[in-house]
């Protein structure tokens, strides 16, 4: 079965420290991979995507993600966390044009 896994329910990091939110996937073929962020009482907002090419993808708000085909991972990173980065983060995979599978979400808490 095709799936997306986010192994950590919550990640805590001190402000100013680097952060990593993990995502692994199990899909056939070459996936399209996405990261989204959700703030309280809001819809998901697109951060970045990997289609093809360079394994390091840069996105909004200073976030980047590293695609690793051999480990089937797409981890979200930021060099220096801000308190305002605290939110719920979702990894997603596109299975063709009309269907997306989302991970279970990781709550990021940045401590001042």
């Amino acid at each position, binding site marked *: 079965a095709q799936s997306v896994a986010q192994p950590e329910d919550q990640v805590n990091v001190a402000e100013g420290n680097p952060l990593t939110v993990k995502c692994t996937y199990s899909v056939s073929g070459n996936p399209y991979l996405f990261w*989204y962020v959700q703030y309280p*009482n*809001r819809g998901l907002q*697109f951060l970045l995507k990997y289609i093809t090419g360079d394994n390091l993808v840069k996105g909004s708000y200073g976030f980047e993600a590293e695609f690793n085909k051999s480990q089937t991972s797409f981890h979200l990173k930021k060099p220096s966390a801000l308190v305002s980065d605290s939110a719920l983060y979702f990894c997603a995979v596109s299975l063709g044009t009309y*269907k997306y599978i989302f991970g*279970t979400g990781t709550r990021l808490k940045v401590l001042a």
Partner: protein
Amino acid sequence: DTAVSQTPKYLVTQMGNDKSIKCEQNLGHDTMYWYKQDSKKFLKIMFSYNNKELIINETVPNRFSPKSPDKAHLNLHINSLELGDSAVYFCASSGAGGGQPQHFGDGTRLSIL
């Protein structure tokens, strides 16, 4: 201008009632979606529509009936509401092709009493 807008934002109703949620996007996208987010924040796709046509129905009960009058609108009607329908429902849209990001509305919180 809000790209994807849903109404109402909150919906509180009794079990057994029928209710509708409306969604509109002004992004010119051909594809629209409905998602359900449960209390644990798990997000599951319900329906995908492309240019007013149903493409994906993810084993959603017949009580849920989406309707797309044009490609900018995708409404969701729910009959005979049950307690398990309590959730946040999100509408989204995207451009053509699998590599396109989705744009989400801010959700409709449905509470069944």
